[in-house]
Structures are given as structure tokens and as C-alpha cells.
């Protein structure tokens, strides 16, 4: 039943062949075709701008007050591209290979290869738009390394790469708005997809300022609505990030792919108390220079600087000598959890490990001293020079750490702990990025496609922009070419009326519970269940319990929720209530998926499936597939399998030792 529409032919020729043969829409007809884009993050802004440039009539939506504030803005570390500017042996094949391996062989070869192919164009496009990437003294683009790879292919703009890339895409988008090709709806939330004759034909959106519901027609609908990490309540995602757009689509027939695949990022600032509303990432780029350690002694209460080198356990360097501190995220996160669970954690909560820059500072200081010909400068001077170098590289991250914790990371090692960061799962899409609903597409983090069971650092920005700038402009034509005879459907059509009615009734239902408990409390409870039982380590019994607990929580939610204010006004509590209601349903599906997949792979660690050394153990014979879940009514799903075929890469147990 699932047709991934992977083109025939050799892997490295598939995309070129596809582009050479897909249907095209001529410019005069493009003007008659309307496309709805939900989301203005990297995926949505790049898609909306590019489709506008091509001449389609685009409507773009975001729930923030400006498209520039989409969650992509927060990405710190960088974006990968197979440019091989460093001459260190990088190539399209290597990027493809690293991504498939990093994803623990649970992604589609053809998609990943395409991603690697277009990666270089992304950098060119961004440079042309004026994205101020970091440069070397010679004026050429600079690169850094990220986890899970052995080449330097990550482009960056200090610790604000997402911001600079998004501003580039936002500028392109605003240019199309000025030209009248894109109409922008900010502070709007999509609350349903409208389906007519089996095709996505529009949406119901709510104006978040006055609460009014609106109907919008489109010949196609693109969901670029981001990931769902906030199902865990605490995550590094922006507060507003949510699953609602994807979930509504799911309930209208779009299958959900690999919902349980969640990425837990190893380096985040630890939780400081119950008041915590979100967690802050300390970019993976820090692992280029920071060394991770815990004391060798359990429950060691000494200050970090009082613990001598020989009493420190640099456990990543010890366990994984080949990759050291740069192992992939899932591996680094589990290793931190293992040390803390065993009693070696640091800080008041004991749920933290050190990320230490002392050796990097000294190393950089010595390089500076060499440059100046002052090798015998006193150590204090060397340290001062070293700090300057580190400041130039990571200054804004260090400042952020200090603002949050009140500690100076130039002097004392950072305390870090893993936190939910990204969701590899998402709406199932075929090679053309179309979901199982005709004319409904999913791009960026909202789809499941390219990262398998674990995403490599700096690859989400790459994927979002690849989807929006370079993939969808071709693949959507293949669908829209047959739509040129179809006139816009009036929003008076009964499908629109019906969808609007359902949305309205649900909002009224939420408002009318008039219980005692706030949305926030329910969200926290859900997060706790998910983190404890469907988090970094999962087992059969825990998942079964979680499913029961979530169903119970859902009952309580619909009986005891309190939403203050009114429907027809600016009401953030109401917006949040709808989102948490969807998160609760999603949470159940995630647990069901995690229960089904009794192997470990990538970020999904089933305690029952590990090697004697505690590494994740895949079971390719039984689980070499994407699980695509079809919604069948409340708490009911059917699973469809997309078998993964590896024609070029031979899956092996990942080894970073």
C-alpha cells in the first residue's frame, strides 16, 4: 500500500533523472495555482519564497508575530554541505554515507543521497542572499566539525547559524510578499486540513489575535510546521513548537512515520528546579573543543577544579577512542546517563557531567604564543590568550551559559545533561515529500524522511533548506501539472463548512470544560510520563504503563481543564490547550511505536536489546522498516511497513570505537 515512489536507476542518477522527467507547469499556469505553506521556518520560508519566485500564488502561515521568529532561528551550531573546501576527503558519497550510518540504517538511501547532492547548492544560495557565514583570513568560507563524522563540512555563523540562515530565507520570503506573490498570515494557526475528493484542498486557520476562524483554499498544502519534541514538556524547542498541524493531517489520513524516534541531545544545561519551562542547548560544536568527564569516584563532592586530572574519567575518550568526544548524539547521551545512573553525576542534582574547556584554552593559548614567538610566556598569559580564542569561537554560548547558571564557564567547567532536542519521526512522505494524502506535503522536521533513527548534527538545517529550496519546487510541479484544469474550489464548499464546524466545536469543548487544572499542569504531567518511560531508555513494561497513564491523563484533561478568557480574543491559554490535547494523543502513539520496535536503533534504546558493552543493538532481520501509522479512531492505529532496501551501503553494527 505504501509507495515511496523512489525512481528507478542508479542511486547517484535518480534525482537527476527525476528532474529531467518530472512534469512541468508553464509560467502562465503557475499563476493560476495556489499553494498553502504552513510554517515559515527554514523549510517553510524557503519553500514559500521559491514557489513565489516560480510564479505560484502562495499563502504562508505562522503562529508567531513574524515569520522571522520561527523556531529555526534558534539553531546554533551549523549546516553541513559536501563542498570539500577543506580538501579533507569529503564528497557527496561520504555525506550520504555518514548520514545513513549516523541514522543507524533506518533511513531511505535515495532521499539521503539527494540531500547530500543538493547540500552544496544550499551554501551557494545562502551566500548569494547575504548570509554572513564565518570566514577565514583569506576571505573564504570556514568549516568546523560536528559529531559522528571525521571531516570538516559544517558551515556556520558563530553560534547563530539558524538565525542567519532563517533571516536569509525570511528576506527572500518578504521580497516575494512585496512582489505580491506570497501573502503572509502571521499570528495564525492552522487547525485542520480540508480534503475534497481525496485531495488536500485547503485549511481552516484561526486568527490568534481575534480568535476568528478562516477558510483558505489551495491546490496543494505544504506542512512545514516543525518537530514535536515538546511532547516531553521540557525540551530545547521553542515554547510554541507543537505537533498540531501534523496531527490534524494525521487524523485526516496522513500516516505518521517512526513517531518514537526522538533525539536526545547530549549537551544541554541541566534542569535547575520545578519552575523550569524549557531547556537550553549548548551547541554540539562545543564538543570540538570541550572534553567531557565525571569524577572517577562516586558521589565526589569536590569542586571540579579541585579534582586532579588522574581522578577524572573522560569516559567518551575512554570508551570510544576513534571518535572521542565527537561520537554521535545518541551515543554521547546514553553514555552520560549511564555515568549519572551509576552515581558519578555532578552538581546538586547529580544529573550532570562536566564539559571542560581548560585544555582547549591552554592549547589555543600556546598556538597564539607560538604565533607571537613567545613560547615561554607565563602560563597566565597563555591562558588569557586562549580565552580570547575560545571567546571568538563560542562567546555567545558561553555568555548564555553564564546568564542562565550564574557560573563563568571560562573558569569552571560547564555542567551539562542530555535533553530532548529533535524528532526524527514525523509525517510519512514519499520521495516527492508527499504524505499519504494526495496534494498534502510535509517538509523539514515535520516529515520523517532523512535522518533514520538518529540525526547527525548540522543536518536539520541542511534538510529543511534542501526540501524548501531544491526539492519541493520540482516535485510539486509533478502534482500540480495535472491540476491546471481544476479551478479553485469555493470555500463555501461543504468540506470547508464541515471542517470549520469540527474545529469550532472542539474549541468550544475546550472552553466549556471549566475544570480546575491549567493546561500547563497537564503538559508537565504528560512530559514526565514521556521522559520517564519513553525517553532515553525504554522497556516493555514501562511503555505499557505509559500507555495506560496517558489514556488516564487524557480523561482528566477533558474533564478538568481550565481555560480562562474567551474564544474571540487573543488567548494564548486556549492556543496551548489545543496543542497539549494533540500532544497527549501523539504521546500514546509514540509509546505504541516504541513498544512495537523491540530493537534498539539510534536514539531509540530498548533496554532489552543491547550488546554486552551496553551499546544499542539493532535487529535488522525483524525491524529494517519504517513504521507508518494510520489513524483509525480514538486510541486505534494500524501499522504499515515500508521495507528499507540498502542497495549501496551494507548495514553493519555502528562502531565509533
Amino acid at each position, binding site marked *: 500500500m505504501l509507495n515511496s515512489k523512489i525512481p528507478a536507476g542508479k542511486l547517484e542518477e535518480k534525482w537527476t533523472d527525476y528532474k529531467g522527467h518530472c512534469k512541468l507547469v508553464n509560467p502562465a499556469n503557475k499563476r493560476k495555482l495556489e499553494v498553502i505553506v504552513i510554517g515559515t521556518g527554514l523549510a517553510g520560508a524557503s519553500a514559500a519564497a*521559491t514557489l513565489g*519566485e516560480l510564479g505560484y500564488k502562495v499563502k504562508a502561515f505562522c503562529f*508567531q*508575530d*513574524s*515569520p*522571522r*521568529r520561527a*523556531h529555526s*532561528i*534558534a539553531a546554533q551550531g551549523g549546516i553541513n554541505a559536501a*563542498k570539500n573546501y577543506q580538501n579533507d576527503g569529503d564528497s557527496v558519497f561520504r555525506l550520504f554515507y555518514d548520514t545513513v550510518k549516523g541514522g543507524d540504517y533506518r533511513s531511505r538511501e535515495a532521499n539521503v543521497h539527494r540531500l547530500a547532492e543538493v547540500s552544496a*547548492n544550499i*551554501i*551557494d*544560495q*545562502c*551566500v*548569494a*542572499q*547575504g548570509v*554572513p*557565514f564565518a*570566514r577565514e583570513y*583569506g*576571505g*573564504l568560507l570556514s568549516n568546523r566539525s560536528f559529531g559522528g563524522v571525521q571531516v570538516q563540512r559544517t558551515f556556520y*555563523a558563530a553560534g547563530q547559524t*539558524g*538565525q*542567519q540562515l532563517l*533571516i536569509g530565507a*525570511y*528576506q*527572500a520570503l*518578504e521580497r516575494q*510578499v*512585496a512582489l505580491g506573490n506570497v501573502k*503572509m498570515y502571521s499570528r495564525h494557526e492552522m487547525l485542520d486540513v480540508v480534503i475534497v475528493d481525496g485531495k488536500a484542498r485547503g485549511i481552516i486557520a484561526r486568527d490568534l489575535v481575534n480568535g476568528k476562524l478562516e477558510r483558505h483554499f489551495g491546490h496543494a498544502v505544504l506542512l512545514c510546521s516543525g518537530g514535536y519534541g515538546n511532547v516531553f514538556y521540557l525540551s530545547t524547542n*521553542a515554547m*510554541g513548537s507543537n505537533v498540531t498541524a501534523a496531527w490534524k493531517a494525521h487524523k485526516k489520513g496522513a500516516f505518521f512515520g517512526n513517531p518514537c524516534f526522538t533525539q536526545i541531545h547530549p549537551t544541554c544545561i541541566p534542569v*535547575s528546579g520545578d*519552575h*523550569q*519551562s524549557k531547556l537550553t542547548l549548548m551547541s554540539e560544536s562545543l564538543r570540538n573543543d570541550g572534553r567531557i568527564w565525571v569524577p572517577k569516584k562516586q558521589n565526589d563532592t569536590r569542586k571540579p577544579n579541585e579534582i586532579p586530572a588522574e581522578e577524572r574519567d573522560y569516559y567518551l575518550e575512554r570508551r570510544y577512542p576513534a571518535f572521542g568526544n565527537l561520537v554521535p548524539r545518541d551515543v554521547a547521551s546514553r553514555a552520560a546517563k549511564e555515568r549519572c545512573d551509576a552515581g558519578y553525576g555532578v552538581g546538586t542534582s547529580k544529573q550532570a557531567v562536566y564539559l571542560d574547556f581548560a585544555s582547549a584554552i591552554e592549547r589555543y593559548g600556546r598556538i597564539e604564543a607560538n604565533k607571537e614567538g613567545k613560547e615561554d610566556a607565563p602560563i597566565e598569559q597563555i591562558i588569557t590568550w586562549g580565552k580570547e580564542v575560545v571567546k571568538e569561537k563560542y562567546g555567545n554560548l558561553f555568555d*548564555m551559559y553564564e*546568564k*542562565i547558571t*550564574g557560573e563563568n564557564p571560562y573558569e569552571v567547567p560547564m555542567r551539562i545533561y542530555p535533553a530532548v532536542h529533535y524528532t526524527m519521526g514525523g509525517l510519512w512522505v514519499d520521495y516527492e515529500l508527499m504524505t499519504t494524502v494526495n496534494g498534502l506535503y510535509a517538509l523539514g522536521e515535520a516529515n520523517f524522511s532523512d535522518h533514520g533513527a538518529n540525526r547527525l548534527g548540522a543536518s536539520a538545517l541542511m534538510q529543511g533548506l534542501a526540501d524548501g*529550496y*531544491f526539492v519541493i*519546487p520540482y516535485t510539486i510541479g509533478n502534482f500540480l501539472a495535472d491540476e491546471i484544469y481544476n479551478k479553485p474550489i469555493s470555500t463555501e464548499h461543504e468540506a470547508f463548512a464541515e471542517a470549520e464546524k469540527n474545529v469550532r466545536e472542539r474549541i468550544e469543548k475546550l472552553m466549556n470544560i471549566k475544570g480546575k487544572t*491549567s493546561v*500547563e*499542569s497537564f503538559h508537565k504531567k504528560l512530559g514526565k510520563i514521556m521522559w520517564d518511560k519513553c525517553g532515553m531508555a525504554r522497556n516493555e513494561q514501562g511503555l505499557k504503563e505509559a500507555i495506560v497513564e496517558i489514556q488516564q491523563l487524557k480523561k482528566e484533561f477533558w474533564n478538568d481543564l481550565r481555560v*480562562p*478568557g474567551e474564544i474571540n*480574543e*487573543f488567548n*494564548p491559554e486556549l492556543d496551548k490547550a489545543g496543542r497539549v490535547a494533540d500532544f497527549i494523543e501523539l504521546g500514546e502513539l509514540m509509546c505504541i511505536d516504541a513498544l512495537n520496535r523491540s530493537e534498539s536503533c539510534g536514539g531509540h534504546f530498548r533496554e532489552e536489546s543491547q550488546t554486552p558493552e551496553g551499546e544499542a543493538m539493532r535487529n535488522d532481520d525483524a525491524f529494517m522498516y519504517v513504521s507508518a501509522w494510520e489513524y483509525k479512531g480514538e486510541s486505534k492505529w494500524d501499522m504499515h511497513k515500508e521495507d528499507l532496501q540498502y542497495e549501496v551501503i551494507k548495514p553493519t553494527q555502528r562502531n565509533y570505537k
Partner: protein
Amino acid sequence: MEHYNMNLNLKVWRQKNSNTKGEFKMYRVENISSEMSFLEMFDVLNEKLIADGEEPIAFDHDCREGICGACSMYIDGKPHGPWHANTTCQLHMRAFKDGDTIVVEPWRANAFPVIKDLVVDRTAFDRIIQAGGYISVNTGNAVDGNSLPINKDKADASFAAAMCIGCGACVAACKNSSAMLFLSAKVSHLALLPQGEPERHSRVLNMIDQMDKEGFGSCTNTGACEATCPKEISISNIAKLNQEYLCASLTSEK
């Protein structure tokens, strides 16, 4: 870092919507940890208001990492509060002590009408960008990223200007409600790069024209914007903007 708890009085601007008049209301919050962020303190207050059957205070926020530019509170007479180079979401409660009274208002400027409580409409900024804050290059038209080396100092200066998060604190801090710091940051970001060269003149003229239309005031060089900007956007960008403007006006054929 030593932690402590505190009780605080909050004097907060409440306004139902853009058509009604607003007023200050007093609230008390107790047992606030010095480790909380300012917005987490507001979360605590809002939870209490909801429990008491009152309406929570509306405020804009999203990333809570100082990068999206959504948060926008005018705290004790300063946009984003007392810390230097900081956003509201990154302000932490250790900036305050037990017994303090904190006054919180929305950004105030004609071009930023209040939507509700502490939430204002900043879409004027988007329209200024629409007027020319971009480089006209369609997807697919780019040459190789390294075909045009860019002097590192220039690239760094461009980046420093591009750090602007579009929060509007500069406008809120300015007695004339001028948007010059925001606008100059965008103009410098693009003018410092060779890619921005072809549209250099039309860009600055059109953006300034739009800024005037939106009802922002003029710049009298008081420097309050620079002092308050969370990203330390330098006022020298305004000088650069004026230069660009003069140059563009002289050569403009309009």
C-alpha cells in the same frame, strides 16, 4: 552560585485589547527562586491567576534563548530590564532581591500598537524589510560560495549587524520611537557584502521611506537604542546608514 528565594510586588500593565484603555495592576508573587528566569516568574504568576479564576497576563515569547526576538517587556523603565545586552527571557531573578517592586509595561510606540497586556504589533518591521531589506536573488541563481572571497573584517562586521533579532527594544527605548538602529543594522549587514552592492541605493531609500510611513520618529542621536539593544548593535551603523542615504539620494534618479 548561592540561590535564594524572594517575595516580590509586580506592577503590570493590563489592557484587554487595542480598543480599550489599559491600566496598571498590582500582583504579589512569593517564593520566587533566584534561579528562575523572569518569564518563569511570570509563568508562576499566571498559574496563580488561573487558579484564582483571573485572566493570565499575555506576553510574547517563544525561544526563551534570547534569539527569536519575541519577548518584549519594559521592565523598571528599561526595555528587557536591568541587565546589559540581554533579552527579557534571559533575564534571571538573581537580578532582583526580596521585597522589590517591579514595574512591567509593553513596548510603547505609535508604530507598535498594543494587542493585549504586554503584547504589541511589530509587523511594521516586516514591512520595512519588504521595502528592500533583501538581496534579489532567486533560488538556483547562485554561483559557488567561494567564488567571491570576502575580507574577513568586512564579513565579521556584516555579521555583527546581522545579529539584530528584530525585537524592537531600540524603538521602545527611544524618546522619538525611532527605528533607525533596527533599519541601520539591516542596511549595514547587506551593504558590507559584495552581494548587496547592486541594490545598495534603492534599498536604503525605500526602507527609510517605509519607516517614515509606519510612523516611527526621527533619530536625534541620543544613543538610548544602542545602550538597550540586547545584541549590542552599534550606533555606528546609524552613521553608516546616513552615509548610505546621502550617497543614494545624491545619485538617485527618482
